[in-house]
């Protein structure tokens, strides 16, 4: 413990935290954000939406359950740096295959432990998310703070291009089951399933799992796919994924989505939801320090039911900017920000939070089933499809 290497976390505003290095040796730059989920650090590390960010876990004991192959949300680690209070080097869990430190080291990601994470969180809460540097090579706080200050922020940056896939591919794994892993649907099941094109802005695997488990054939396409490319395989629906950084910096995506809107049912999550908002002519803005956690209450305004949701976003859609084009469907009960939109006369819906969870509660999993119903209803009801299935759902709830 005492023999460990020193490391420093420096914020752009000059606040310094001293700790010990774990994971890779080196230096990392990114926006410092905190995540309040008490479980799921592996999912956080591998969520491409964290590209460009240094993540601090508010729960202090991290590393307890190690790392396993099943729980990765993408092929690699996407956080720029990882900040914890106490790193546990010896994991204890029947599925663990590797210690967290070793994993970060292999991925070349710099971690820092032994810092006062709560003080960091309070600082970010008071002063907003800001650029930061973690280093275990340079130990001069002044230099590091200057580097943090000089680094580009997330606003206006297209980080999607760094995490999206290079080429289209099909995804064929469904939900995870303890002991059995991810379920692979049969050929027959796949043959009869409707096709959804999922645009990969940095997609989390569990979204793909949930789509397959909801009875879709899934074709994943790169973020830059045009409307024509998206529509080429004649999909039954289009899904817009989560992803990193600034939704406003993705004009190509806005354009492609505009080209699909009204022609295919669309479901968007997180960045996908923001892109939809922008494609409709709305505005997005940056939140003070975002929502990153697994305990945010969101109300479905139609049913008045509250879902406990998984969240990870630094930007939000301005509700006022979409008047007449979309309806507010979900509201964050903590800060009253927009959590969901549904089309007014156009068959789409989207949520700011993460119904695929991973990490986090499964309360909002019903949205995948809703998307499946929407896709099925669309050929018959067209623009009315969304209202039709809403009425059916309402009836079911009343029964």
């Amino acid at each position, binding site marked *: *413990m*005492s023999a460990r290497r020193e490391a420093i976390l420096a914020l752009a505003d000059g606040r310094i935290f001293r700790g010990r290095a774990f994971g890779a040796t080196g230096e990392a730059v990114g926006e410092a954000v*905190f995540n*309040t*989920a*008490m*479980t*799921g650090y*592996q*999912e956080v590390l591998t969520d491409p939406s964290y590209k460009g960010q240094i993540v601090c876990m*508010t*729960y*202090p*004991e991290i590393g*307890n*359950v190690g790392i*396993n192959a*099943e*729980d990765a949300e993408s092929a690699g680690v996407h956080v720029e740096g990882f900040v914890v*209070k*106490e790193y*546990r080097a*010896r*994991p*204890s*869990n*029947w*599925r663990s295959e590797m210690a967290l430190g070793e994993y970060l080291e292999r991925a070349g990601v710099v971690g820092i432990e032994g810092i*006062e*994470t*709560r*003080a960091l*969180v*309070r600082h970010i*809460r008071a002063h907003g998310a800001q650029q930061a540097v973690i280093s275990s090579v340079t130990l001069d706080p002044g230099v590091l703070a200057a580097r943090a200050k000089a680094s580009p922020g997330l606003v206006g940056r297209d980080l999607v291009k760094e995490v999206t896939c290079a080429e289209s591919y099909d995804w064929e794994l469904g939900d*995870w089951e*303890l*002991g059995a892993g991810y379920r692979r649907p049969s050929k027959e099941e796949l043959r009869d399933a409707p096709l959804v094109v999922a645009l990969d802005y940095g997609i989390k695997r569990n979204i793909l799992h949930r789509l397959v488990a909801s009875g879709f054939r899934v074709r994943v396409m790169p973020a830059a796919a045009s409307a024509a490319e998206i529509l080429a395989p004649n999909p039954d629906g289009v899904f817009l994924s989560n992803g990193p950084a600034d939704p406003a910096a993705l004009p190509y995506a806005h354009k492609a989505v505009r080209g699909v809107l009204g022609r295919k049912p669309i479901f968007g999550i997180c960045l996908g939801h923001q892109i939809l908002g922008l494609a409709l002519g709305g505005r997005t803005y940056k939140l003070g320090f975002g929502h990153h*956690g*697994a*305990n*945010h*209450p969101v*109300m479905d305004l139609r049913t*008045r*039911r*509250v879902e*406990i949701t998984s969240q990870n976003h630094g930007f939000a859609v301005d509700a006022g900017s979409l008047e007449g084009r979309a309806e507010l469907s979900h509201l964050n*009960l*903590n*800060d009253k920000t927009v959590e969901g939109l549904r089309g007014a006369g156009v068959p789409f819906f989207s949520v700011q939070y993460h119904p695929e*969870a*991973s*990490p*986090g*509660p*499964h309360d909002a999993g019903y949205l995948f089933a809703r998307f499946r119903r929407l896709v099925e209803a669309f050929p018959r009801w067209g623009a009315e499809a969304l209202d039709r299935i809403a009425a059916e759902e309402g009836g079911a709830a009343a029964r």
Partner: protein
Amino acid sequence: MPLRKDLKSVLLIGSGPIVIGQACEFDYSGTQALKALREEGLRLILVNSNPATIMTDPELADRTYIEPMTVQALEQIIERERPDALLPTVGGQTALNLAIELAESGVLERFGVELIGAKLGAIKKAEDRELFKQAMIGIGLEVPASGLARSQEQAEGIRRRLGLPLIIRPSRTLGGSGGSIARDPAEYHAKVEWGLGMSPNHEVLIEQSIEGWKEFELEVMRDMADNVVIICSIENFDPMGVHTGDSITVAPAQTLTDKEYQLMRDAALRIIREIGVDTGGSNIQFAIDSRTGRMVVIEMNPRVSRSSALASKATGFPIAKIAARLAVGYRLDEIPNDITRMTPACFEPTIDYVVTKIPRFAFEKFRGAADELGPQMKSVGEVMAIGRTFKESLQKALRSLEIGSWGLESRVAGLREAAALATVRAHLSLPNSHRLYYLGDAVRLGLAREEIHRLTGIDPWFIDAVAEIVEAEGRIKNGPLDAALLREAKESGFSDRRIAQLAGLDEAAVALKRREAALAPVFKAVDTCGAEFEAFTPYLYSTYEGEDEAPPDARPKIMILGGGPNRIGQGIEFDYCCVHASLALKQAGFETIMVNCNPETVSTDYDISDRLYFEPLTFEDVMAIAERERPAGVIVQFGGQTPLKLALPLERAGVPILGTAPDAIDRAEDRERFNLLVEKLGLRQPRGVLARGLAQAVRGAAEIGYPVLIRPSYVLGGRAMEVVADEAGLRRYLEQALLASEDRPLLVDRYLQGAIEVDVDAIGDGETVVIGGVMEHVEHAGIHSGDSACALPPRTLSPALQEELMRQTRMLARELGVIGLINVQYAIFEGEVYILEVNPRASRTIPFVSKAIGVPLAKLAALVMAGKNLSALGFTAERVPRHVSVKESVFPFVRFPGVDTILGPEMKSTGEVMGIDRSFAMAFAKAELAAATDLPAKGCVFISVRDEDKATLAPIAQGLSAMGFELAATGGTARYIHNLRIPCATVNKVTQGSPHVVDLMREGRIAMVINTPDASGTADSFSIRRTALEMRLPFCTTMAGAQAAVEGIAALREGRFEVRALQDYHQDHYRDNCAPENRRG
């Protein structure tokens, strides 16, 4: 859906006396519920037989009934008060069981009372083990393979099907009462028998043993709109096999990935929906096979529980308060989160610290009880500690226990390696109350984590943390203790005292080094949200980091030190006093600061004081708070022995102690100084000597004459106190007691056989002393005052004698300069008054007296300590009520197989009940009913008393016979009764062979037992007492108790049992004269 408009009045049922498995957490939850519903303007009716609760304070409900918690009493209360609804989910298993009985007997329907929170169907589905099992299978969840048996034959069938080992769980008992593990057929047969006897519906669930699996709990809340949230996850350090109440538990869960945790969360949501708990909190327990992750559901409590109290304290989310609001119509999203104010209660708390709970046991109190843990709960209290890491919280919890532990001390120090290894392995594989310490020793002895895991089932993650603590101990031992090492040690939760032990220094030297290194704790807030939102409620814990979040303000403040973990001799009564002190002082304009580490209590509700420090009550931890807050004064006399022990050290460190000077306390507690005091005042005490060592004790006892009462000085609850009849007994005692009392001197006193014992509570302001109450014990002196029943006002003492007792009490209080409370215990022997003990502090009887006389003594005392005088407070004359109040004690013997139920000078009760009525007899009868002793109206009474008690037997035997009872007795007693010309059957002693008395008892042919212990035949009488206990037969072990029981039976037979609210007893008096809130300034 806000407040339901159709509800105007709600009946709440409390949990009755403190027993193992049901402690003050239900006062906490009930009090929260009352406060929350009060704010909604509902008319509240409360029933609880336990006077030592905050919830039974007459201000908290409109109608407060301190009555036996029986269907009969409840029916009368419901008939009088006509509540619209009954909330059964905040009073533990007692309230739930009573609600089931009221529903099933048709009472609720007859009076149109709606069950809110949980309907009968949901309660039964959760509580009935077979229904629950079927429900779980129905929703696709796994439960341990099991079968239900109502007879030995059925149990045999299950054994053949499932194979041993098996767990036997009686249905509908609390705290796993009667639960056990059987590993061989003989043991199985006996334990099934025991379990069937323990179950109110004579039914046991026999379950495949999953000992060693990981155990988890989730606290779940649901509202009427079906919104469900998880408040807290808890992981047990001790795996399956140890009752969760006896396990060390940690929040949040530490060793689950998100996927695994979400499976559990999903299951919890399905369970609460399937069971159909409408609103409120539930606790669901799961087990996970650590090799495969296979998960099974263990059980669900459809109500708030001990765990929900812990979860509330661990997260800052007030489960009971919210549950009460949900029950009357609110939705989770309509209720604000008190702590953040900005966000709703409809969310899942996230915490950025680790919480550890460690139970506290009382095996030393029960000779013959094995220190073994299993499915039946045995702990009497618990502590909780908060730290930024598990290691820190674990070590803080250890020193909170107050068992002389300052860290992970070795339990095998001094043993040779082979012996040490054998001892350690034995203590690892069989769960016991010291297993954590042996785990530390295992690491010291070099056992591999795999072996430790194999022996204990404890998750390697926890073992590693303990190993790191042990490894740090090694470095501290080897030194040098520089600033870096000291910082590391403090960050890992080491106490100064433990560091001192390891480094061969004294505590002050470590504190000094710490000061030199500028190492002081900072305080962080418990905020429900991991600092995501600002916290407005200063609920704080210490840690060694950089940023302090809650700098003190400049208001004049008073700090109240709580009582720490519940234990026998120090429990809810002291927490009651601390809460009253805080409430009264807050009202008087002070800022109040509470320090305590007991998660079950009302005092650790963040709503009670202006600031709550959830911290261990050690000198180091309290000083850290005192140095930062600089209180105008500290109250140490309300929390029992815990804070009292800190009085002198704190005073020496310059902390102002309020009220009676620590020196005066010492004068009363130090035997030699006390003798001088008694002599100076010309009072009388039983002749006694202070003995150091065996020779002095033997010589002293011979001088005084046997029997003698012997005990270590400075004890609470009569720890290690005994009456010994002769020198052999004295020598036997000393062999054990020297261990118990370390190097402290022993007191050897004349034992006043047959004396009447009296307790007097009084309050003094430095000038005026006012008597609170004079309580005459039912049992004779020699039985610990905490174990005896007592009556207020006294039932046999003459007015002149009472006046004399009050005179002496006033004299003592003046001499000691009492500012605050004082309790004096007297013995009346052959017409003379003897002083047994003086306690210049709050006593266990303060809540009882306050409720009996309708004056909140603890509040008045707190105000007096803060500088007010009694005449300004309007309390200048003793108040003698017209009604009679009787306090009766309840005991945990049933939890400790093989332990004798005989009472003596060492306290053994866990709680108390109160009976109030016009006459002593009826008040006593009510108290007995409340203590779950069903005084019989007819049948056969078995009597066996020792020779010296026969003189007082006549009126008892005559009384019983006159009421139509049959009598049965063994040889000597039977002859004696015959000689009184009273019919009496002679039955065999056990040693005389069948059919003997125990056979008759087992056959249900005995309705009550009167048995006073006979020194020669204790083995025989032991089996009688034990059988009576197991058969739930009323049994009297003293003649005075038997006499009172006969009077009680007569009262029940003659008089109508009537209920009356506390507000009626004290009507005008309380409101006009004594409620301090009416008398500001």
